[in-house]
């Protein structure tokens, strides 16, 4: 199962090392950004591992690109949302937001 990379001969296996799978990054987006895009990232990350272990290097690279795409989309939407949030707070919408959307706020 484990690709022992680099191989003892010093030559990488066909196709080279596994492409970056973005698993950790997509988990971060999923549990911090509160957006479904993170799950799309996680699924593609798992796909990178599967394809690579099956020897489908091109497929692994494609899945890696998809994982990167969804993870970045999730991250940047969260970033934009956070910036907008901060701006609204500064403009004094904070109180309205806090009372307007009661979301289990007092569950201490």
């Amino acid at each position, binding site marked *: 199962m484990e690709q022992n990379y680099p191989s003892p001969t010093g030559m990488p296996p066909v196709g080279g090392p596994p492409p970056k799978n973005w698993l950790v990054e997509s988990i971060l987006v999923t549990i911090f950004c509160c957006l479904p895009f993170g799950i799309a990232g996680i699924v593609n990350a*798992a796909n990178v591992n599967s394809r690579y272990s099956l020897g489908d290097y091109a497929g692994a690279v494609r899945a890696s690109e998809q994982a990167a795409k969804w993870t970045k989309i999730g991250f940047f939407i969260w970033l934009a949302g956070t910036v907008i949030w901060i701006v609204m707070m500064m403009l004094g919408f904070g109180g309205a937001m806090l009372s307007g959307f009661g979301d289990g706020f007092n569950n201490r």
Partner: protein
Amino acid sequence: MTDSTTGKGRWAFTLPQRAAGVVALGLLAGLALAALYFRLDPARYPFPRCPFYLLTGLYCPGCGTQRALHALLHGRLCQAASLNLLAVLYAPVLVFGAADGVRALATGQVRRTSFLYHPGFGWLIVITTVLFAVLRNLPSALGTWLAP
């Protein structure tokens, strides 16, 4: 990319300054976030809310993560687990992944042979995440506990 053929210590040559900058920035950002969440309780201060929850009224897999992080930083493991079990379970994975990334940058060679690249582990994460997202929205005792 320079080869350390001068024997002036491999650190100065195999570690590109860009990588050092990335690691330093990452550590600083992490420490700043940890300090922020340690000092301020997200349940009482106006931290950004979950947009998914505001739009749909459903809990996403991430709802409660900020409060869980705050509880974790104060050593309240049970409270953290009840706010967001997923965040608590994945925390060691994320720490390991970060350490792996730092090591890859420091040594200049990417060895993707850890369990993070195991197909079984990848799908385990997928199944756990989706299951958690569904279960915490179901009206049951378990769902109530899994909800933030």
